[in-house]
Structure formats: C-alpha cells, structure tokens
C-alpha cells in the first residue's frame, strides 16, 4: 500500500477517535440556544461557551451532584481491583508453578473455570446476586458491590498473569527455595519484584472494567453507593438537558483518560506480552 494511503487511513482513524469526544466536550459548554440551533462544532466561532452544564452536575446549581458518585466509583473500583489482583495473582502464580488435580481435572481446567466466568453476562447473575446480597444484608453497600465485581475481575487477572508467570524462569523461585525461602517467601522476595509489568497491566484492566460497570450498580445499589455510570445513566433517563448530560459524560470518563496517559507505557511494553503468548 502506498504511503499516502497509509497516512490518509491513520488520519481518518484518529479523527474518528476524536470526534465523539470533542463533540461531547464542546456540547458540555453550549447554551440551550446553541444546542437547539442544530449541530455546531467550534466554540466562540459558532457559539458562545458557558459553564452552566458543569454547574448542573457539580452541585453548584442544585440540579445534581455527581461528586459522591465519583467517590463511590473510586472506592468500589479500588477495592475490587485490589482484591482481584492479589487473590488472582496468587492463584495465577500457583497455577503457573504447581500441578493441581482433582480426579482427571488439571490446571488447564481450573484456568478455564476462571475464564469461563467472563462468558456470563451480568444480567444473568443480577437476580440471584440481588437475592444473595439481600440475604446477607449487603444490598446498597460498598462491600456487596465490591464482592460482585471481584467475581468478574479476578478471571481477567488469572488469565493475564498465568502466562506472565510462566515466562519468568522457574529456576529463580526454585533457587530461592533452595536457599531457604518457603514458597510464599520465594514468591514475595523474588517473583513479586519481577512481576511489576504484569501486575500493572492486570490492574489497568481491572480498573477499566471495574470503573465501567453499569449493570450491577444499577441493580444492586440504590442511593448510598450508586456509581458514576449508573448515576449518569439515571440522569439520561430524566429530562436532563443535552449540555448537562455531555458535561456528566466528560466528567465520568475523564479520570480514566487521565489514567491512560499515566500508564500507557505499561500497556505498550512487556506487561501484555504474557497474555498474548
């Protein structure tokens, strides 16, 4: 393919990636007039920007306040990721280093059991989870939502980390054991420091999928721990104006976009190589 064609394609794709976000961003600063006129794209030239939409969602105008929801999202995402990465990481290390078996099931079957969790759509689990949490008195609590999210995130960690650990020569932890470390110390002292890229990539994916969850929050929480996506979608269901919705959209995806700029180098480098082998 010729060079020109290649750059045309690259530019086109980059624009395509940009357009929805810039549309949401500009709309969030529009006045009702600017919106109702029809599609406008360029601030100051086509319309005069205001911050009314942003005031609506930050509790300034009294319309809505999404900040508590963002705090909820952050708490839930943080703990669900933490539990998933640690327990999933342990399990993945075990699956990479030892042979487990029960009757004729082996390590690969256990790994499949983990990954199979991803096939289940949240809607399938919604009602049983609802009843379960209700029975445990965990409805509309952080802990309840964290537990439920963990079941979806841990499989991602196991899937990413088993192959990652497989790539670290097992002689290293063997040697640590020879030199007096029990398996847990061997893991902590020699393998853990080498696993930073793998842990980073697993954390990134846990954070993305945890933050982005809509369904469980919609079904399992009501007021106290409503997360950001659920809150925004709820706004969407009412007569919330366009500019306010756009502001709320930008507001809720901004943290993760900031996050990608920080962690991008991990995404591009070694961390992912384990998963694709």
């Amino acid at each position, binding site marked *: 393919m010729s060079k020109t064609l290649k750059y045309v394609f690259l530019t086109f794709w980059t624009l395509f990636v940009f357009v929805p976000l810039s549309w949401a961003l500009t709309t969030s600063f529009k006045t009702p007039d600017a919106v109702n006129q029809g599609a406008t794209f360029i601030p100051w030239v086509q319309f005069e920007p205001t911050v009314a939409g942003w005031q609506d969602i930050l509790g300034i105008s009294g319309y809505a306040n999404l900040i508590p929801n963002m705090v909820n999202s952050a708490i839930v995402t943080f703990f669900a990721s933490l539990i998933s990465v640690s327990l999933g990481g342990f399990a993945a290390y075990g699956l990479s280093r030892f042979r487990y078996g029960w009757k004729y099931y082996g390590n690969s079957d256990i790994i499949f059991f983990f990954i199979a969790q991803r096939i289940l759509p949240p809607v399938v689990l919604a009602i049983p989870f609802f009843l379960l949490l209700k029975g445990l008195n965990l409805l509309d609590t952080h802990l309840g939502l964290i537990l439920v999210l963990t079941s979806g995130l841990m499989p991602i960690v196991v899937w990413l980390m088993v192959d990652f650990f497989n790539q670290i020569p097992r002689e*290293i932890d*063997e*040697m640590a*054991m*020879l*030199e007096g470390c029990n398996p847990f*110390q*061997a893991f902590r002292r*020699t393998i853990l420091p080498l696993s930073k890229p793998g842990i980073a990539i697993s954390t990134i994916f846990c954070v993305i999928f945890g933050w982005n969850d809509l369904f469980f929050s919609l079904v399992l929480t009501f007021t106290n721990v409503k997360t950001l996506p659920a809150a925004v979608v709820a706004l969407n269901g009412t007569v919330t104006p366009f500019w306010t919705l756009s502001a709320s959209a930008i507001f809720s995806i901004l943290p993760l976009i900031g996050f990608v700029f920080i962690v991008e180098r991990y995404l591009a480098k070694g961390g992912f190589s384990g998963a694709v082998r």
Partner: protein
Amino acid sequence: MNLYLENAGVSQGKEVILEGITYDFEPGRIYVLMGRTSAGKTSLMRTIAGLIELTQGKMLFDGKDFDALPTWQRNTSMVYQQFINYPNLTVLENVTFPLRRSGMSRALAEETAHKLIDKVGLGDFLDRLPGKLSGGQQQRVAIARALIRNANVLLLDEPLMNLDYKLREQLREEFRDLLTTARNSVTIYATTEPSEALLIGDELLIMHEGKVIQHGKPSAVFEHPNSVTVAKIVNDPPMSILPAKISDGMLCIGDLLRLRIPMHLVGIPDGVYQAGFRASELTISTDGEVTEQGVVDLVEVAGSETLIYVNTPTGEIVIQKEGIHGYHVGEKLGVSIPSARTFLFNPSGELVVAPGN
C-alpha cells in the same frame, strides 16, 4: 554428614526417570555425574534438592530422612546451566541473599560476601545487576552464591555448558579450586565433558537411562570402562569400536587384519568380541606396519589437536593427532592399530579386558 541414597527411583506416569540408585556421598569430595543429555543427571540433582519427588527407595542425610524435608529446609545449593541469578538484585545482594535468609545480620553477611566476591574476581561489580554482566561473570556470581553458606549439598548442573570455549577452559580450573574449599558439603557436579570430569572429580558416576552404570575414581573409570556405553561417554573424541575375533592365538580386527595376540589378551578364550581403540592411541601409519586402509572422511581441528575420521572397510575410525595437520578429505591413509592398547568388549558390550596403564 553424608548423603545416602538407597535404591532411589523416580517415575512419572509410565516414564522411568531414575532407577535403582544406591550410593553414599561423603562431604568434602567432589562427585562428578557424567552421561549424555537426558541420562538423568539433572533429574538426580533435582531429586536431591527436593524439586522432584522420590517415588521409590530412600534418601538419608546424616542418617535422617532427607526426603521428608521440603526443599527449603534441606540446605542445598544449586548452580544451573543457564545463568540463573536474581535479576532484580545486585551482585552483592545476590550473594548475601542466602545468608540473610538464614538470619545473618546485614553487616556480617556483606562482609562474608565481600571476601567471596573478591575471590571470584567480581570485586569491582558489587552493585551491578546480573543482566549487565557477561555470561562468565554471571556464572561466577552463581557459584559465589552457592558457596557462601555451608550447604549440606552443593549441586552444579553443567555450569560451564553455555560459556565460550576459552572461558570454559579458564573457569574449569577456577571452579575446581573454589569447590575444594567446600569441605563440609557433598559436592555433585554434572557434565558431559570427559576432560572436565577428569579435572574436577574425586569420584565419577556414569549415568545412562536413569541408572548409574559405573562409578569409581575418574582415572579408573577412564582406564577401565566397564562397557562400550561407558567407553563412549568418557572418551571425547569417541572411541573407535571395531568388530574383532580371537582365534588360533591371533587377534582379528574386521575381516582383513590379523594381529599377533598382545600380552594383556593372552588367555582370553577364542570367540567373537568388539575391540575399542582410543583416538589418541591410533596413529597414521607411514610405513608398512599393521594397518587398516581407509579414506579420510572428515578432518577437524580441535584445540591443538587434529581429529581425522577415516572410513575403512571394517568401520569408522577416529584418530587424534597432536598439532594441526592438513589431511584432505578423500585422501587414502593407513591406520596403525596399537594392539597392545586394545579394549576388549564382548558382543553385548561388557568389558572383557582393558589394556591397563
């Protein structure tokens, strides 16, 4: 403080990995395991280290059941064929790691490590990460780490295998000197190279298909290989094995060559045998001595010797000649057979008589 194996065996599923090994390893001596790749050398070491489970027999250390202890309580050290060190720790941290694990204070551990690191010649690299060292240096770190504490058992699995030729030559002697300092450890060293075994070993164990098929002093094994298999393993270049027959007081090699029976074969009953000759003891014949005629198949220059592979009607003969010589492929040669240096094996490969020294 000796390590005693009785009828030790390992099998995984149907596959037999080690079988019927009975041996008493004493501290302060260097035991060399020799054998082809996958003869069971590595498996035996890993079994001793507790990384493979014994499925048969007993393993005792100092009279106590060694097999019942998990790896981390056995106090063994290992140097691997691949250059394995902790990649995230510096040279100094690598070497102090085992000491710190056994609870020694940092200051004392570092002092001990300093001495040993100087001894292996890495005094200037204390703060380097292993990845920034050459292969030879990495292997020196590994041996320092293995030697730093008084391990019950010190295991070295072909530690020089992946190094440059010249470096191997140099480290071989360095390692021998270092290993003789480990007076309290049972030292086991695996190799495929006969010269390494002869240089380093106090005792030599030849392994084949998971069994120890001969053991003894290295030179004794070298002089009296008990079978064709052993002879092939301990001789590099390989021993030339030719069909032979003894009848009417003559030693017949192949169909053509009839030699007067040499002294050490007098009294051997008539019959069919195999005769083995060391490459270094075969010579190219310049006059009409007792010779086998053949054609040069390949000439290799090894170190400072020349290896000449000659195809003869009786079989392939390998000759080693000191110095560097230019024979041409296809050249016709006579090979003189030193009958006094005949290793005689029976048809099933067991040694009948060795020429002695």
